[in-house]
Structure formats: structure tokens, C-alpha cells
């Protein structure tokens, strides 16, 4: 499936927060729709499930949930589309996807539960590494 987003030029700025919100949801949907393709081209069946990928994408959206400036939202959308384009066009390699969206920044993603809430920084660091 050829990715057509490349041909589209930069859309005009969102005039209101409502419009930015609609665009964000549209983008989230298109990202979710591309998950089967991503699973296929990067051969991710044995490392991750589509739902895990989807929740990872959702987590990235939620990370910026507090932003209200439409210009910033537009910029983030643009960056996200660029990233999605790269992923779907196979401009990345398998270890990029695994490193960024499967393993995550804090060790294996399955480790980062809510169990550590209330633990001290010492304990959180202790679970990660011996050197802190």
C-alpha cells in the first residue's frame, strides 16, 4: 500500500481547538489503521501484539494531552505524520520499531506497570540497574 500522505502538502493551521482535536483523532485513526501493515513489513508477530502497539500509540498521544496551543498541536501532528510515513514506507528497520515502540525507554514495556507507585526513587532505580 503506497502511503499517500507524502503527496499532501502542509495543511493550513487549525483555526480552533475543535479543529485541532478532530485532526488529532483522524491522525490517531490512520495510525491505528496502519498497524496491520506495520506488523507485516517489520515481522513483529513474535514480539508484540497489535493491541500492544495500539496502546503504545495511544500512550504517545496521551503524553501530550495537556497541550492547548493549536500551533503546537499542529506541529506535533506534523511530526507524528512524518514518523508514521517513515514507518509505513519501510524507511526504518526492525530494530528501530522494537526499540522505540516495543521495548520502550524504561526496559521491557511489560515491566512498567503501576506496581511501583509510591516506591522511593531508590527502589525504582534499584529495579533498573545497579549503577545509580
Amino acid at each position: 500500500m503506497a502511503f499517500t500522505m507524502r503527496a499532501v502538502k502542509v495543511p493550513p493551521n487549525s483555526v480552533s481547538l475543535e479543529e485541532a482535536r478532530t485532526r488529532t483523532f483522524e491522525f490517531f485513526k490512520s495510525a491505528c489503521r496502519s498497524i496491520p501493515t506495520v506488523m507485516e513489513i517489520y515481522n513483529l508477530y513474535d514480539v508484540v501484539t497489535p493491541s500492544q502497539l495500539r496502546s503504545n500509540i495511544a500512550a504517545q498521544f496521551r503524553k501530550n494531552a495537556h497541550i492547548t496551543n493549536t500551533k503546537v498541536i499542529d506541529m506535533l501532528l506534523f511530526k507524528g505524520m512524518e514518523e508514521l510515513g517513515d514507518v509505513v514506507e519501510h524507511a526504518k528497520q526492525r530494530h528501530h520499531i522494537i526499540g522505540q515502540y516495543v521495548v520502550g525507554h524504561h526496559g521491557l514495556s511489560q515491566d512498567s506497570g503501576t506496581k511501583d507507585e509510591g516506591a522511593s526513587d531508590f527502589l525504582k532505580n534499584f529495579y533498573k540497574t545497579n549503577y545509580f
Partner: protein
Amino acid sequence: MTLGLLASRALRSSRPINSPTTFLRTIISTPELHNNTSSAAAVADTPPPPPPDRTPVGGARVHFANPDDAIEVFVDGFPVKIPKGMTVLQACEVAGVDIPRFCYHNRLSIAGNCRMCLVEVEKSPKPVASCAMPALPGMKIKTDTPIAKKAREGVMEFLLMNHPLDCPICDQGGECDLQDQSMAFGSDRGRFTEVKRSVVDKNLGPLVKTVMTRCIQCTRCVRFATEIAGVQDLGMLGRGSGEEIGTYVEKLMTSELSGNVIDICPVGALTSKPFAFKARNWELKGTESIDVTDAVGSNIRIDSRGPEVMRIVPRLNEDINEEWISDKTRFCYDGLKRQRLNDPMIRDADGRFKTVSWRDALAVVAEAFHQVKPTEIVGVAGKLSDAESMMALKDLLNKMGSNNVWCEGNGLNVNADLRSGYLLNSGISGLENADLFLLVGTQPRVEAAMVNARIRKTVLATQAKVGYVGPPADLNYNHEHLGTGPEVLTQIAEGRHPFSSLLKNAKNPAIVVGAGIFERKDKDAIFSVVEAIAKQGNAIRPDWNGLNILLLNAAQAAALDLGLVPEADNSLETAKFVYLMGADDVNLEKLPSDAFVVYQGHHGDRGVYRANVILPAAAFSEKEGIYVNTEGYVQQTLPAVPTVGDAREDWKIIRALSEVAGVPLPYDTVGAVRSRMSTVAPHLLNLDEREPTTFTAEVKPKCSEKMSKDPFTNVVENFYMTDAITRASKIMAQCSALLSKK
């Protein structure tokens, strides 16, 4: 100088006449020798230049016992004051001139056979071997004259005549005295056309590799073996070009200090067998650390490459190990690569260990913690534990409501109130002042090889008498075996034994009691008898404390300093939760079968067999930890290599566990742990200092216990395998198979 010059000129001029062939090549890399004598005379007439400001070699210092004994000599025109009896070479070192040498070693007797240290002395007809020539008042020593240089060049040429040119495959390459000195003092070309001799390699055992063709017959190893190690194994065979070092008959070198011949060999003739072809010395990263395989705390340098410890070599510390280390210290490092615990593990219902995450392992331990009564919790620190982790373990157990925590080897009701009751009060170097030794239930040769070397040094130097009470032992100095059981001590204390008259006449008697006595039931009675003996021999005075305890393990002294003393005597028999922090030698037979055992440690050793949960920890080469040696000298290890797998430092594991168990300990950094330690035992933070004891046994209450008739037993069965690291080592296994005396 003129005479010497004339002599050498005469020699040179006679040579073409004796050998008039045109083929002859002459080597002259010292053209100044060809200057005519007039210029040399002119130099001598001019006043000497102002003395250069030089610092003594290797921190050499002079100590004048008596100011009348000082004499003045001139080294290269520079006046220097030295005590009478020093050699020319030592005078040059004080003056800051390093004389090249192969056979001379300042801790060994003088041989004077390599001739590399030749210097010129005014009014002497020939260059003199400075290592063997005593300095005389007013001597004018010249170390960089053409004659001295020519002499060194000639010696180098002779030495290299029979030395193979195999530096690229030689393990000494890069740290070889011969290599360095041939670059500095040797000729720039060779005129050797004949065949080199070759020598059969000797088998000295699993530790020392020999390539005897490389030997330059400096005899340092022979002198080390006979003088320091006290074994008559090595010797010189043959004369002239047939001269070789060997063990007269085919046998192995059976000394606990044999590895030191590797360090003192100036060439690659004796190298480390386990280290052979493993690394080059310039690839290695050196970390200055200390040894934990016995209670001496020898100073070592851990040489590592990447994540792997490649070798261990000694570091100079005059107070503890001088510049030697025992074979166990030097070669135990391959145990650091075997049998390691690298992941937290939980024992399943079917008895197999399953790897889990730290989160799960700590949760299981914390849950088990809360299912038992506080009095049923027991903690045992191991032989190799550092002070930080023992502090954390004691704090954790106290917070849980238990005070049954101790360090293995200290026995159950050890007296930790008086520091003098468990330390080597004379100090290791202080033992040199003793003129009589009484060894009670201890075999220093296997329990603390470096202390034994110190005793041997004293016995050889001052003819000190040694009395020994214990099982038949192989001590490598003259000693009198007084008996095997404690009843001999009673006889000595009551003055009925011939040894008591020797004791009364001794000026500085040193009584050394082995820590194996801590495990005996009648230890209080034995200690009170030993104190009576010390009183009788006047061994405890303000200027001399001769009542010593020789500890066995690196962790013991710090554990007693921190007060790791159990509350109840038989707490293991009723325990429901046992925390083993690297404790492998604790007897778990009487432990109830439903007890929950946590093993925190770095090796899958004896403690693991009974464990329910394994928490992997760091070994001494991977962590920063404070240790106190048997004389109370505080030192620390430094991390040389990263930890293995998912292991953590010991005190961090206990700190994390405390938080999961709901009783968080109030320290997050190693500095905070240490400040906690300072509130318990402030001297533990004075690194590289020896904190002497203040009170002595005199304030102790009288003991009314009866002494048993049981003879003393061997505490260390096998010198080479005493703890988890050495038991995992393949080299140590080979040693105990081949070298242990049966």
C-alpha cells in the same frame, strides 16, 4: 678514573693485534671513550657543577639510628649523607640515581652475580658492583661516566647472548626489566653470530610457568624461595654456560608464596601459568583494591580488561603484606568467572530454581518476612561481607524486631565488648619486634600466609623462639611443638612448663591465638588462661601489647566492630526465616525443614543448596566496600569490573528489601550508609589507618568455666579453598589436588 680509562684503552688497542682479520666488526656506541685523556683531565680540573636537585629513587629514605654512624659519600659530585653499612647502590638511590640491576632486590640477600649495577668509584682500578660494595666515607661514586656506561653495555651484551629474541611471544613483554634496560643501556647493534644455548623447562606446578631458556641466572627466585618462602625447592645447578635454575629432583614448588617469584623474575623465565597468553600488560586497567580471601587484607591491584579480571598482583604496603601476596590471593580470580549467580531466583514447588525479576523476588522475601515472629528471624553475614552490607543487615533485622545476626566464623557468644579481645594487637609489622612467639591453636601458614611470612622474617632475623600448641603442623621456621591440647597452656600459665622460663625472660613476647578457638565451647576458659600467660610474661604493657588474636576471614573484624553478635545461642534451631548474606560455611543441619532461607551472594556455593530465594550480589572485585583486617587496619575495595548479569551491590539489596517489607532503612547512598556506620564505629571511616585498641583484657571479669581436654583442631583444612570464590576456582582446585600436603 684515569686508571680505569687507561685499562680500557689498553684493552682496546690490543685487540686488533690479537685478531688481525678484516672480518672483525667493532661496536663503539660510546664515542666519548675515544677522546684523548687530556680532555678528561680538563674536566676533572674544573670545579664540579652545582649539584642537581634530585629526589630519592622510589621514595628511598634514610633513618639514622645513631648520628655518629652517618657517613658522607659523593654521587656524581653530589654529597649525600647515609648511615654506615649501606651499599653503594643504596647510597645512589638516596642521592636520586637509579642504578640498573637484575639480581639485586632490596628484600633479598645480595648475590652480586648479574654485574649490571657496575659503577665507577674513584681510586678503584675496576668498576665495582654497587649492590655488593659497602659505601665508605668520602667515596666518590660516578654513575654516568663512559666507563660505567661501557660496563653496562658489555654486561647487557653478555646477558643477551643467551637470551632468546622471543619478546613478541613472551608474557613478560612490556614489563620486562631486561627489555627496558637493554633499550636504556644496551648497545644499538649486536655482534653475536653463534648459537644460543637452550635449557629444558621445569615443571614447577600449576601456578608458575617456566621458560628456562630466558633465564639470566639472577638467582632472585632461589633466594626468595629459601629466604622468604622458606622452602628449599629451587636451586642452581651446573657451572658456567651450563648453569640453570631447577628443583634438584623432579618436583613441584610447594610454597604458599610461590606466585611471588613471577613478580621478582626480571625476565620472562618465570611467568604466571593461568595468565599465559591471555593479555598484554598495556591493555589492562589496574584498580587498587584489597584482598578478601583471608583476614590479612593484602593490598592488591586488580588488572582487568573490559568486564574480565585478568590477573591480581600485589601492591606495596609495608604494614601488611610488604610486596608479597599469597598464592590464594593471586590466583583465586578465575573463581570470579565461574558459578556466578546472575539473576534473582525462586525455588519452585518441584525444587527447581526459576529466574524471576527483582520485583517478584523481593516481594516473596518481604512476604515471608512478615509471616514469622521476630524472634524466629536470623541473619548470618558471610566471610567476604563488607562493613556496609553488614551494617544494613543488622539495621534491617533490628527493624524487624530480631537481634539474631552474626558473622560466620565468629562463633555464637563471642565477646565483642573489648576490641583488644579479637584483634592482632601487636600489628602485623609490629610482630617484627617480638622476640618470642607462642602460637595457640593457630597455623599461620595456612590461616594467614602473610602473617606467617612476617613471623618467619622475625625468626630468621632475631632468632626468636617459637612455641606452638596445636595439631602437628608444618611451619616453615624453627619451632617447638609444646602439645596439642589446652592443658599445656595451664602448665605454662602455672609456670610448670619449661617454656614459661623462656616466656619470663623474653622482652617482647607475642602470643598469637587462632580464631578457631571462637568456635570452641570452652573459649572463655582458654582465653582466661592465655591472659594469665600474657600477664606472666608481662606481654601487655603500655609500649607493647603481645596478646594477639589471628582472625580467619575478611569480614570478622568489621562484624565485631559493628556489633554483629547474636542474642540467643541456639537461634538457628528455632529459626523460621534465615537470611544468609554470602554465608556458605554456616551449619544448617539443625535448621527446621520448614524454615525459609534467603541466600544473597555472588556464587552458587554451599548456601544455595538450602535456599528458597536467591538474590544475586556483587563480588569484592565489583563493589566499593570497607573491610577491617585482623590488626584493625581499615581499607576498602574498589570496583574493577562491572557486576555480572542482574546482580546488585549487597547493601542496596538489603535497602531495597527493607522498603518492600515496609520498614525502609534511612539511607540511599553509600555515603549515607557510611555515616550510619560512623555512629556505630567511627574508626571504620578512617581509611588506610590502623585504629589501635585502648582497653585490654585486664578489665574483663573472671571466668569460672572449666577447660575441656579436647585438643585443638585444624581450622583450615585446605589452604587453597576456604570461601565461595576460591572453591569456584579451577586453579585453586588444581593447587589443592597437586600441592596440598597429604
